[in-house]
């Protein structure tokens, strides 16, 4: 299968400035209100816009929802999806679940580790690429599957992985 241009892959992850984060927070607080059931939507909104949830904003979030800082920290750290540091420019998530394992995701992961030069939960030497596990993308009949900056790809052979990464990586990094 040939490599294809994918807009989601070509767009670098968003990383907002300090002032921009405050603007994002103010907008979210105003839009979502202060009921606790809006905490997850708020964290999603912040991570979508800022790229991550800056730990130094936890007190402001806690104050807004009338929660303790520990409660907000507990929620952020409980969920695998939320990140507390800026993401690498390109995040590769390899599915580790059984269906993908049955179709060789272990060797695909090894191939990805060699190509990116890092292990699971690690980053490439230049910091541009991160490798993460994910548990099921719902592509179990077209395994193995992975995501590159949230764009899903299925039936990924090592050769297809190389083609996808060549499209995702800046030329000098290949």
């Amino acid at each position, binding site marked *: 299968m040939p490599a294809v241009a994918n807009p989601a892959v070509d767009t670098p992850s968003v990383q907002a400035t300090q002032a921009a984060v405050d603007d994002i927070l103010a907008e979210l607080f105003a839009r979502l209100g202060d009921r606790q059931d809006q905490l*997850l939507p708020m964290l999603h909104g912040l991570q979508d816009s800022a790229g991550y949830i800056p730990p130094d904003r936890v007190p402001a979030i806690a104050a807004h929802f009338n929660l303790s800082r520990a409660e907000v920290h*507990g929620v952020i750290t*409980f969920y*695998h*999806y939320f990140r507390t540091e800026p993401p690498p420019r390109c995040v590769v998530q390899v599915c580790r679940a059984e269906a993908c394992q*049955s179709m060789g995701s272990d060797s695909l992961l090894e191939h990805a580790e060699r190509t990116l030069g890092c292990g699971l939960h690690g980053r490439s030497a230049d910091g541009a690429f991160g490798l993460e596990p994910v548990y099921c993308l719902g592509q179990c*009949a*077209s*395994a193995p599957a992975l995501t590159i900056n949230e764009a899903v*790809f299925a039936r990924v052979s090592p050769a297809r992985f190389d083609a996808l990464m060549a499209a995702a990586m800046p030329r000098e990094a290949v």
Partner: protein
Amino acid sequence: MTTRIYVPCDSAALAVGADEVAALIAAEAARRGLDIAVVRNGTRGLLWLETLVEVETPQGRTGFGPVDAADVPGLFDAGWASGHPLALGLVEEIPYLARQQRLTFARIGITEPRSLADYLAHDGYRGLRNALALAPAEIVATVTASGLRGRGGAAFPTGIKWNTVLKAPGTEKYIVCNADEGDSGTFADRIIMESDPFVLVEGMTIAGIAVGATRGYIYVRSEYPHAIARLEGAIAVARHHGYLGADVLGSGRAFELEVRKGAGAYICGEETALLESVEGKRGIVRAKPPLPALAGLFGKPTVINNVLSLATVPVILDKGAAYYQDYGMGRSRGTLPVQLAGNIKQGGLIELAFGVTLREILYGYGGGSASGRPIKAVQVGGPLGAYLPESQWDTPLDYEAFAALWAVLGHGGIVVHDDRADMAKLARYAMEFCAIESCGKCTPCRIGSTRGVEVIDKIRTGAQPVQQIHLLRDLCDTMLNGSLCAMGGMTPYPVLSALNHFPQDFGQPDTSRHAA
């Protein structure tokens, strides 16, 4: 006349390049001056054929697949004729599809998921219109009479759950859809949400009218961004046309719906953890009782059902309880959407009445393993389901028959492994998965899973195998009987079934033929 060419927009098709195929078809048609409209339908569920392109002809829709972008010019050169190597003939006549009994998935792949008009043209919202003419208790009675059972593993009768909420005191009640489908090998919910989102919206609206709830939440996993976008689109369209809102279809009844995005915690598929998560807390399970039906979301009476249960309600209200009840066997009524996945030649979605055997699914539909090697073990019901050896493949898909084997049917997910699978490694993975995903509230699950990984490591390296296997069984017994929810309580299923049926993979003599 314009020729319509269908290219699926389900994420399984997108993941193998459907967008590029669709764009190229439009570009080639323009270049050749052909009058062609590209329609983005849902998936037919024949996932090994994705991207499955269909061309409208006087005889019906003819299929081509799997189509890659590089195949498109050649398909035009051949005039999309039946002689092309990728030609599949009439899609409705492909045996894999023609032999199914599609009730919940009747519209899937045929319609455009984004189009309300298309939904209405294919019997959409007839169930809701019928429901609005009934008293709430009559709607609940219809669902009860249909025999519909929940798809979450416990297989609890949906109508009985609804009845509890209907009779619960209080005016503030909720409908919550558990769309946190995190089990490996399951994708039926994803297909519903991406390929026929209105059916879920309709099912939840009927549930709301039936029990007196005015608000519903769909909790969707963050791994499914495409499904979230489709649902949000469908909700906005339904609201705009009066199918949701303060006055549903002029009935004077109100129902509002909202999508809530999960955040990558498997445990939130457990209903009480899911409720905690919607409330803005860590997804830690609650002790039951109280049942969510009496004290659920925000402490109020709550119907919490799976996507498939709710998406099946419209057809029951449209065609009647007897119509649905006529399918199935024993106490497993209606149909089961089977998801065939893993190392299988023809993986996909197969909706059939209960009672078909696993072997028929594996070979009659699946065509054997993808690798061409012998199938060794089949895990049914997700990562917490048992591994079944060949001696058990003649079991019919039926909740009670599976329970008798000490296995679960769960959500109908089937993951196939060929003879290269190392069952001790898979058992270790089950414990490791539990350790990563445990909410941590109860000790058997939180600590037991970590110790389980260690014990299996010792068995695999051959250190004191007899004692360690004894210890593993003891540990599993504690998790099974002492855990607060199914996370810890079911992790022993894959572990012990692997150990019992494939002892050679644990360095033990093969006695499986006697033990099974």
